[in-house]
């Protein structure tokens, strides 16, 4: 990437290495995430895609034996700095997991959960924010009459959109999606892909995916990780049409992973 592009990077990852105990799974990865676009992270199973996402909101902090090295700049700060307020970070960097994870509470409370953590607001404002998030996640019409029903009573695809709504409710800047459609049927997958495409107008999206067609269809930037190393990172069109590294070529041809 040329240096002029770097100016509007929302997040800049520099020489990031990651360790589970003694085991190093990311090796000096450097990459920039650009605003209002979708960055697809691809690579064979076990190459460190999820690990990369998990450093960007410091969720790995929960486990004492995991640690990251290097720098990740976001909002003028190196978020790997131990002094960084993780609540601040996680409010700005939302995450959706591989399997839907509705909380054991009503649909409304699921979406309101994050909001209630950060601010006290009158219930009418809360209701508005919940509705807005559900609309943004293209779920409102399906659930507006059953907001008090349990979030776990929804279908898998609906549950995943509920999780997206829950992440959107706190109005993050970056949305991390770790194979958000891998547990879903094709129809639900298509709906979520559409949703992700509309969301990119307002959010910086990073999506891990095993599905190359999906990545090619909706991403603006694409990164190829292999055994913890970033092999190639470029505009999606360029990377898919004329990859420059032989390993990327092999991967795209389906020779491994």
């Amino acid at each position, binding site marked *: 990437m040329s240096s002029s592009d770097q100016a509007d990077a929302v997040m800049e990852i520099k020489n990031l290495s990651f360790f589970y105990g003694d085991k190093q799974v990311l090796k000096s990865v450097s990459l920039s995430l650009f605003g209002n676009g979708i960055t697809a992270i691809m690579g064979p199973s076990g190459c460190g895609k999820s690990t990369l996402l998990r450093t960007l*909101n410091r*969720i790995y902090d*929960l486990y*004492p*034996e995991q640690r990251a090295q290097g720098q990740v700049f976001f909002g003028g700060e190196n978020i790997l700095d131990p002094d960084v307020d*993780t*609540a601040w970070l*996680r*409010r700005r960097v*939302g*995450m959706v*997991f*591989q*399997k839907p*994870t509705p*909380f*054991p*509470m009503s649909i409304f409370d699921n979406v309101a*959960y*994050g909001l209630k*953590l*950060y601010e006290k607001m009158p219930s009418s404002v809360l209701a508005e924010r919940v509705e807005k998030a559900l609309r943004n996640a293209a779920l409102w019409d399906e659930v507006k009459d059953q907001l008090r029903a*349990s979030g*776990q*009573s929804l279908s898998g695809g609906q549950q995943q959109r509920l*999780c997206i709504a*829950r*992440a959107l409710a*706190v109005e993050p800047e970056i949305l991390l999606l770790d194979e958000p459609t891998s547990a879903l049927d094709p129809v639900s997958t298509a709906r979520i892909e559409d949703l992700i495409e509309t969301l990119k107008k307002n959010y910086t999206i990073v999506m891990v995916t095993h599905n190359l067609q999906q990545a090619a269809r909706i991403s603006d930037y694409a990164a190829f990780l292999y055994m913890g190393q970033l092999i190639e990172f470029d505009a999606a069109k360029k990377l898919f049409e004329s990859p420059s590294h032989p390993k990327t070529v092999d991967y795209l041809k389906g020779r491994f992973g």
Partner: protein
Amino acid sequence: MNAFIRDVSFLSAMGVVVLTAAIVFVLGVAAAPAFKAFGWTFFVSDSWNPVKDVFGALPAIYGTLVTSFLALLFALPVGFGIAFFLVELSPPFLVKPLRVAIELLAGIPSIVFGFWGLFVLAPVFQKYIQPFLIDTLGSLPLIGPFFEGPAFGIGILTAGVVLAIMILPFLTAFLTEVFKTVSPLLKESAYALGATRWEVLKSIVTPSTRASIAGGIMLALGRALGETMAVTFVIGNFHRLKLSLLAPGTSISASIANEFNEATTDLHSASLLALGLILFVITFIVLACGKASVALLARRERR
């Protein structure tokens, strides 16, 4: 051969049922004279006088229920805290020693708890804790009568504390296993929204495991209800109903353990056996409630 195994296991299963029924039957027959002599006043009378051959179960029932309830009241928050610490917070190197410590606590014979309660805990209670409670809570309206003096050291409250320590290992082990069943992905989803450990415990872990927690509480209560030795040491063995938790009292199992050898009259031993029958019924009800609440909550969770 298969038929043989089937028959044997069927017979053993039936054997358990028959054995239980037989015990209840014998207990009922042996206790009958007490119910015949006192009727329903047996349950509400608090006079227990072997000399005059007059017996009432109320103090023992009260002592059993209140000590068990207190035990749960004390053990539950502590067990909850330890279990959550073990599963969520503890650095890995601490997990093992803590678990071993808790297992050791479970292995201490109940008679040792009794000794400890009598010779270590009771003096401390008499000197510091009970006077403090009497001075502060004892003069309040409504709850005052539960904390009236004098400070004996032994008594219902002390028995409740000893019982709490005794059920703590079971409760902790149970809750630890229950907390471990919550999917890490679910917890991480809450952490990823910025939730703290406490918020995750409150709004994710506990609600997802309500049914199992309710079951564990009932099982722990069942254990506390029947515990004999330790309670006998520290409860005071006093057969008059006192509302105060600081006063000595008695429990069903403590009464039986203390008096059965010296039961002078037939009515005395019948009354003790009647107490045993009542304990059986109470424990049965608690376990049944436990099962029912587990089933109910599990169904609600699945919806």
